[in-house]
């Protein structure tokens, strides 16, 4: 009786293995490939045949002529910020002096680049994934003057680009208003 039960357990696991880890993901992959090839493949951004990354994965812009993303915690010793091979947050607690060192350093860098007034919180804190592709609209606007100056563009031109890349809340209430940093920066390059 016990032996029959063991056999039953093995057989049923094999059946589920085929159905749940073979057929099921295959169906999803197939439908994804046919119906949503770009999204299933990672929302890659192409320009002139070259792939410039993914619109869902942030990149470590640091040049004054680009909008900067949020700090990224994928960058412990030997690694780079926005490294998709090491996604994750800083995990620093709210009273940890190391956290305040990081936010303080990021704040000084922003001040040095000419941002005045209260600093948008997202520009000094690292995200959960370390790959956050977005910044808030306030964070983009705080950088507009610097970017315009570095590119010899008028404030109105930069403002217009920010507005064109604003993503509103889904259905008007879900999530947060934001700007995709990679898309905005590629648009800047295209505008000259």
């Amino acid at each position: 009786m016990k032996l029959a039960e063991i056999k039953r357990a093995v057989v049923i696991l094999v059946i589920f293995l085929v159905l749940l880890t073979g057929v099921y993901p295959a169906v999803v992959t197939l439908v994804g490939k046919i119906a949503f090839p770009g999204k299933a493949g990672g929302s890659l951004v192409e320009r002139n045949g070259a792939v410039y990354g993914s619109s869902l994965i942030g990149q470590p812009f640091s040049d004054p002529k680009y909008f900067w993303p949020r700090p990224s915690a994928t960058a412990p010793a030997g690694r780079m910020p926005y490294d998709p091979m090491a996604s994750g947050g800083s995990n620093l607690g709210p009273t940890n002096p190391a956290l305040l060192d990081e936010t303080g350093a990021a704040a000084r860098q922003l001040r040095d680049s000419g941002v005045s007034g209260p600093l948008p919180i997202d520009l000094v804190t690292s995200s959960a994934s370390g790959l956050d592709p977005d910044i808030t609209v306030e964070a983009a606007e705080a950088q507009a003057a610097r970017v315009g100056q570095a590119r010899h563009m008028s404030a109105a031109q930069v403002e217009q680009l920010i507005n064109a890349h604003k993503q509103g809340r889904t259905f008007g209430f879900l999530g947060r208003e934001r700007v995709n940093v990679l898309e905005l920066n590629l648009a800047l390059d295209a505008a000259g």
Partner: protein
Amino acid sequence: MQNFEIYDLIEIAVFFAVLLLLVKPLGAYMAAVFQGERNLLSPAVRPVERLVYRLAAIDEQKETGWKRYAFSLLLLNFILMIFIFLVLVFQGVLPLNPEGFPGFPLPLAFNTAVSFATNTNWQAYSGESTASYFTQTVALALSFFVTPAIGLTVIIPLIRGIVRRTATQIGNFWVDLTRGILYILLPVALLAALFLVSQGVIQNFGGYRQVDLAQPAAGAAGLLTTQTIPMGPVASFESIKLLGTNGGGFFGANSAHPYENPSPLTNFVEILLFLAIPFALTYTFGRMSGNTRQGWAILAAMMVILIGSLGAMYWAEEAGNPLVHQQGIAGPNMEGKEVRFGIGGSVLFAAGTTATSDGAVNSMHDSYMPLGGGVALLLILLSEVVPGGVGSGLYTMLGFVIIAVFVAGLMIGRTPEFLGKKIEVREMWMAVIIVLTSGISVLVFSGVALLLSAGTSAILNPGPHGLTEVLYAFASGSNNNGSAFAGLGANTPFYNFTLGVAMLLGRFVPALAALAMAGSLAAKKYVPPSVGTLPTNNPTFTGWLIVVVIIVGALTFLPALGLGPIVEQLQMIGR
């Protein structure tokens, strides 16, 4: 930042409205499935179901007593655990490994196999740099379906035990298991996976992509010009990870990763996925016991605690970090949170994932404010009953219900009865085991870890926050949650072993006690309600149940919480 609040509140309100609307239809559907009635999916699924029974030599009509039922459950779980362990260890020579990852070291393989076989999904590793596609889509994804189904195979016989009169049998384990997977988990997971792909969650078996950065960046190792983007069959993994209250991430960042959770809408749907079945089971319970008001009374108690906790968490995070504000920075606490979700979408996920046994995260709990992270910890410590994991949440809550009935009976001098069944010594023993096992495990293991340097050397954050990291780890393991204060460097032999044991105890001791209770309740006679019967389906009882859940949780853990999050919050305000 005040102006964002209103949208967050609308998001939360709409979320709970949608969730409540799903409870009745989904709950009624699940009741029909487990009672073997014809249902919506019968035409498509019934032939597959019969094929499974034929291949595995299962007699659909034959039911068993609780001991035989429990034996089959443990046997299946044991084989599943061995299978996962072997795949992890031999990953290096198995197929679908384009990145050539080697096998897991033994302590990590033990921890991970236990973790996934117990519906915990604690992860001491990071998926994108450790686990092959074969490991993720075959070994881990199999456990994503089987372990929540096993949760169902404990709650359903417990409901039968309450309903049946002088019966010896509580059901057929194999039939309950098969129905749970074929009629409930698989169809919903499939639909959800297709939706997630349509919104940007990736789904492919391609190799990792190396792309040129738009602007070369300075890294620690010199100028970097490229970025390696991991790929994988994520959508099919993600949907069942959430639906089954599993929670193990495809990537290290879990549901915070843009490829797992790319937009506010996917975030909304993902939270719905892990809360839907646990809440709907209260209706299934009401329907099967012919007392739907009883189901709603339990649901109301769950909702009150969940929404209250959510409120406290939201308030703490939206207020932000005063120490950061002193640096001339304005806004809510965004450390470890994603811009697209904002505070509302982050705390809704965090409260939901710790109130169920899901343990997926879309924000890093370690970086929450002391109070916000403390609430997440408290929700886990309350044994995950508001609403808890698939199946496990309701059977643990029924343990609390039995205790509430018994204590109330003692206080007002009435015979303790629940739905026509007398509560006696045996039931009380089982209820106490269900309710207290995880708490004892948390306190003993945390205490041991704090005494040994093997335990304390893994702590990242100094001071009381470090204590919270250790407490959170054992709370998460013992209650099969799987989320973490991830600063704790838990991939050490000490933590891999102790957390593995905590997960085994926290999963199987209460499950066996629930099945034993099912057996003893089923054997009892029905006692018709009389004037001496305490009604258990009115608001008074709901309120009493809330009090019992909170008192048990608070009395067990108040000292520990006092030394961790509470003292940290006070220190922060005082600075």
